[in-house]
Structure formats: structure tokens, C-alpha cells
């Protein structure tokens, strides 16, 4: 019996601490675990007893890349609990802020984290030596997203201007119109990004996912919509916990999300796009079709193209909102606490982000529940890995390991924002061919 071991102590280009463990025996994938060993962070516990108005600033600290998502899910959940709806220009500004985050997060992943997989580089630095113009374009696009967040959120990272009911300070119209030219450039650059991403080499791989995303009445989803799936789910956020569950598995400190009825499901760009193609502006639909995506996409490796399409949408939507912005009289609407429970989901760059808060009459938080997209996607990541390994057993160790890493990065997993490394060992045994990664 011969045994081969492949070890990667540090998988770059994902967020958080984790490892992969897989076993292949007699040519059959017997076991796949995405081990997440990052310590639990107890946010839900230390929200208890805090004032309901503190939730957006506390939960923003969960993630350095997608703080806006946490702020948006929390303020909407609190407003739902208190029976308040925020509309008009304040609603538009929230969409605009979210567009900034999508641009920033997606562009980072497309250009610096994911593209090297397709072009055969160790990372963005190696890639930059041969593709300087490409990286320069990506950095400038990301900066345009950051600029939106700075103007509306007060600063680039962990914005401080979001409050339950609206904002603390509203931007002047001239502050937003000052962004116009760069966002216009960004829209063109995003279209080029879609066209460039469409030309990357994609493994022929699709799975029959249960795709789950928000679906609003008449727009591409960011802050609201019913939670729907391609397998029959159609609920408001209040029904989320009836349909979905989180389970603890021994090999992960992050909970695993499943539908109670059918198990693993997929949230994120592929799900959003496939369930909301008809909600995209016609020009964005046309760009997607030209890129060969079709109205649905179930190839996770093509998520890089779908992200590019969503970046194009985000620039387009940001320009639309800026062009019609009139500064409202008040930066927020009053929100009075009451004893109630509020549930809400928004679309973080990586997918559905669900929050529930039970608050007391004095506004203190009794219970907080947060279900982030990476938890929900973990079982799907493992199922992808199982199929990818099974389909690629003929690859040598290096190539198979690389394909596994790429499969994980398809999800832009945000295991945490504090540290980042993932240990991956693939061990194979000849004869009974065992592939073991830990």
C-alpha cells in the first residue's frame, strides 16, 4: 500500500480559520468535513441586555468586510419588532450603502482572492506581476465602493452612521453627486469585468442545489423581499425558523444551516441571481446573457461571473439612486420600543443574513439570533467538495488540492474577519486509495 500526503498549512484567500478533512476509500469519497475551529465569538450572548439601538453598531463588528449587512439586518429586524417601516429616500440610502458594500466585497473577492485560481497563480501578488492593469482596475473599483460607504456610513470600515430608524446624518446632495463620475467609470469597468470573467476556464460542474434568496416585488434583492427557494420555499422572515434550522456538528465551531425538510441549501450570488434574474435591469440582464450565464447558474465555479454581474448591478443601482436623491428633512424616523420579536433577512454579499431580536418594553434585548450566510452554506461546501473530489480523482495531489481550495473559495467564505488560515492535508492510500485532509 502506498500512501501520499499533501499538506497545506495555510490556505490563503479565505476569511477565517478552518481545515478540510476528506477520505476516499476504494475510489469512493467516504467522508468530507469542512472543519471550522475558530473560537465561537458569543455575539448573540453579549447582545442580551443591551439597548435595541445598539444592535447595528455591535453586530457590525462581526465582520470587517460586510459590516453593512449586519447593520442592515439588525436595524430592519428592530424596526419590524417596533412596527416601523422606513421608506422613501432613507430606504434608497440604505440600498445605496449596501451597493457600496457589495462592490467592495465582491471586487475584493473577484480580483484578489478568486481570480488567481483561474489564472494559475498563488495569489494576487503573483498575478499582479503579469496582470498589473487588471489589478489596478480592481483596486480602483473597490475604492469606488469604499467611497460610497465613507460618504453614507461615515467611514470605510465599520460605518458609524446607521441607526434604527435611518441615519444619524444625511449626506448633502452634492456629496453624492461628487461620486457620480467615478461610479460611472465603475459601471463601465464592471461591464469589462463581466466580459473578462466570462472568458476564464470553468470546470464542467453543476449541482442540483436548493437555491435560497430574497425575492422582492420589483427590484433586485438587497434589504427586503420574501425568502424563496427553487424547491418551494416562500415565506417572510418571520417564518425563517420554521423552515430552516441550525445544527451543531462536532467538527465545526460554526453551526450548520439546513432546511428542516431537505437538508443542505445554497445562499449567495448564484441563488440570488438564479431566483431574481427578472429583477435585474435589462442592461445587466443583457451583459449576463452575453457572458453566457443564462437565466440560472448552478456551476459554483462561475460564481465569479455572477459576482461580476452583481457588481455591474450595484454600480448601476448606485447611480440610479444618486441621480434622483433629494435630501429628506429628517435623517431618521422615530422608533419607540415595545415588547416584541422582530425578524429580518437581508442579502449580504455572501448570501442571506437572518437576524431575530426579542426585545422588552424598555427596549432591552432579551434574545438575539444571527444566522450568517457562511453557516448556511457549510453543508453545501462539503457536498460540493464531495462531488469535486469524486470527479477529479485522476488529478495528481497538487491539482486535486488546488481544485478543493478553489471549490471552497467559490463561496467567498467569511469564517471570520479576525484571522485567516485553513489547514488542508490530503492523504491518499494506494490500493484502498485514501484521501485524507485535516
Amino acid at each position, binding site marked *: 500500500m502506498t500512501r501520499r500526503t499533501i499538506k497545506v498549512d495555510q490556505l490563503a*484567500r479565505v476569511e477565517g480559520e478552518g481545515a478540510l478533512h476528506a477520505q476516499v476509500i476504494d475510489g469512493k469519497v467516504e467522508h468530507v468535513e469542512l472543519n471550522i475551529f475558530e473560537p465561537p465569538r458569543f455575539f448573540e450572548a453579549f447582545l442580551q441586555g443591551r439597548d435595541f439601538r445598539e444592535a447595528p453598531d455591535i453586530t457590525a463588528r462581526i465582520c470587517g468586510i460586510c459590516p453593512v449587512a449586519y447593520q442592515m439586518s439588525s436595524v430592519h429586524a428592530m424596526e419590524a419588532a417596533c412596527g416601523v417601516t422606513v421608506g422613501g429616500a432613507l430606504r434608497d440610502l440604505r440600498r445605496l450603502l449596501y451597493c457600496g458594500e457589495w462592490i467592495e466585497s465582491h471586487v475584493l473577492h473577484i480580483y484578489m*482572492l478568486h481570480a488567481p485560481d483561474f489564472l494559475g497563480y498563488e495569489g494576487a501578488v503573483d498575478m499582479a506581476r503579469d496582470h498589473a492593469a487588471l489589478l489596478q482596475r480592481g483596486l480602483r473599483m473597490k*475604492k469606488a465602493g469604499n467611497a460610497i460607504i465613507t460618504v453614507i456610513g461615515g467611514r470605510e470600515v465599520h460605518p458609524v452612521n446607521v441607526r434604527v430608524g435611518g441615519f444619524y446624518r444625511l449626506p448633502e446632495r452634492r456629496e453624492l453627486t461628487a461620486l457620480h463620475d467615478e461610479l460611472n467609470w465603475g459601471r463601465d469597468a464592471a461591464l469589462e469585468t463581466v466580459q473578462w470573467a466570462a472568458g476564464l476556464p470553468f470546470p464542467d460542474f453543476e449541482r442540483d442545489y436548493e437555491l435560497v434568496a430574497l425575492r422582492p416585488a420589483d427590484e433586485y434583492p438587497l434589504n427586503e423581499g420574501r425568502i424563496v427557494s427553487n424547491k418551494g420555499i416562500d415565506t417572510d422572515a418571520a417564518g425563517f425558523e420554521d423552515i430552516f434550522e441550525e445544527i451543531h456538528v462536532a467538527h465545526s465551531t460554526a453551526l450548520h444551516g439546513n432546511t428542516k425538510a431537505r437538508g443542505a441549501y445554497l445562499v449567495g450570488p448564484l441563488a440570488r441571481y438564479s431566483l431574481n434574474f427578472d429583477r435585474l435591469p435589462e442592461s445587466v440582464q443583457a451583459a449576463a446573457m452575453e457572458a453566457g450565464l443564462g437565466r440560472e447558474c448552478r456551476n459554483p465555479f462561475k460564481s465569479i461571473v455572477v459576482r461580476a454581474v452583481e457588481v455591474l448591478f450595484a454600480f448601476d443601482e448606485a447611480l440610479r439612486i444618486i441621480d434622483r436623491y433629494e435630501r429628506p428633512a429628517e435623517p431618521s424616523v422615530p422608533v419607540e420600543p415595545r415588547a416584541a420579536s422582530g425578524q429580518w433577512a437581508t442579502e449580504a454579499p455572501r448570501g442571506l443574513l437572518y437576524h431575530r431580536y426579542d426585545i422588552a418594553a424598555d427596549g432591552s434585548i432579551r434574545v438575539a439570533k444571527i444566522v450568517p450566510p457562511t453557516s448556511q452554506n457549510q453543508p453545501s461546501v462539503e457536498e460540493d467538495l464531495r462531488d469535486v473530489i469524486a470527479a477529479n480523482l485522476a488529478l495528481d495531489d497538487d491539482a486535486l488540492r488546488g481544485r478543493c481550495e478553489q471549490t471552497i473559495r467559490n463561496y467567498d467564505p467569511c469564517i471570520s*474577519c*479576525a484571522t485567516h488560515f485553513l489547514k488542508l492535508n490530503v492523504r491518499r492510500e494506494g490500493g484502498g486509495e485514501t484521501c485524507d485532509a485535516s
Partner: protein
Amino acid sequence: MRRLVIGIGNSDRGDDGAGLAAARELARNIPQVVTVVESRGEPAGLIDQWQKADVVFLVDACASGVAPGTIHRFDARLAPLPEHFGAVSTHGFGIGAAVELARAIGSLPASLIVYGIEAGSFEPGAWLSPPVAKAALDVAARIADELACLST
């Protein structure tokens, strides 16, 4: 000549706040001479910042295994930063990678001096340890001296 000092770190993680402490000291002492910004080390933001300047000083905590408070100085135009500059960072992009990315795309400033302050502890919620706090002040003084030399 546009001059910029960038302090990098996290004040809530013990000695990881060393770069910020040095930058704040400079901002207090010579704000008319230099622009001081604080950063969490996000590479795209760093590259964007230093493209706006000719002379850039960057101060960050590092962990190379020597005594806490040891001061390192590198001229990033001359050579890549040592490995340990990439070790303590988020999202896989250390300062070293940011420098190399900028070098690859032609976005390094005319002068980029990197000061590393050897950290002892990254304990959440802790203050700077005494040797690191002193080193941060020393680095601020050394950067002030270097800036003064540039002016003469």
C-alpha cells in the same frame, strides 16, 4: 513634497496597537508637517493612501521572535519586507503583500520606509506593554528626525 505617516494596527489587541500609538504621537507633535492616518492594514486602502504621497512612513507591529519593543526599519523600495510582516493580518494580505502588490502594479511611492515594532502580546483588551509603548514613542521620534532631515 507630500508626506504621509500611516499607523497600522488594532488598539484593542494589546501590542498590535503599536503602529497606531506611534502615528498618534506624530499627529500630536508635528501635524503641520505630515499627514497621519490610521489604518487596519487593508491593502487596497493602503495602496490608495500612499499613492497620494511622495514620502511614506508606515508603522506596524510585527512578530519576528526577538525581544518585544525591538525596532525594525526597512526601505520597502529596495527589497520585499521579511515574512513576519505578513503574519499578523486579516484576510491573507499582510503589509508585505500590500507592498509587493503595489510594486507589481507600479504603485509604490517614491519613498516607503516601514518601521516594525516587535510585539509581545496581542491579548484582546490589553494595553501596550511597557517596552512596546516606549518603542512606539522612539519610532515617532525617529520618524520626526527623518522628516526633519528631508526638510533641510
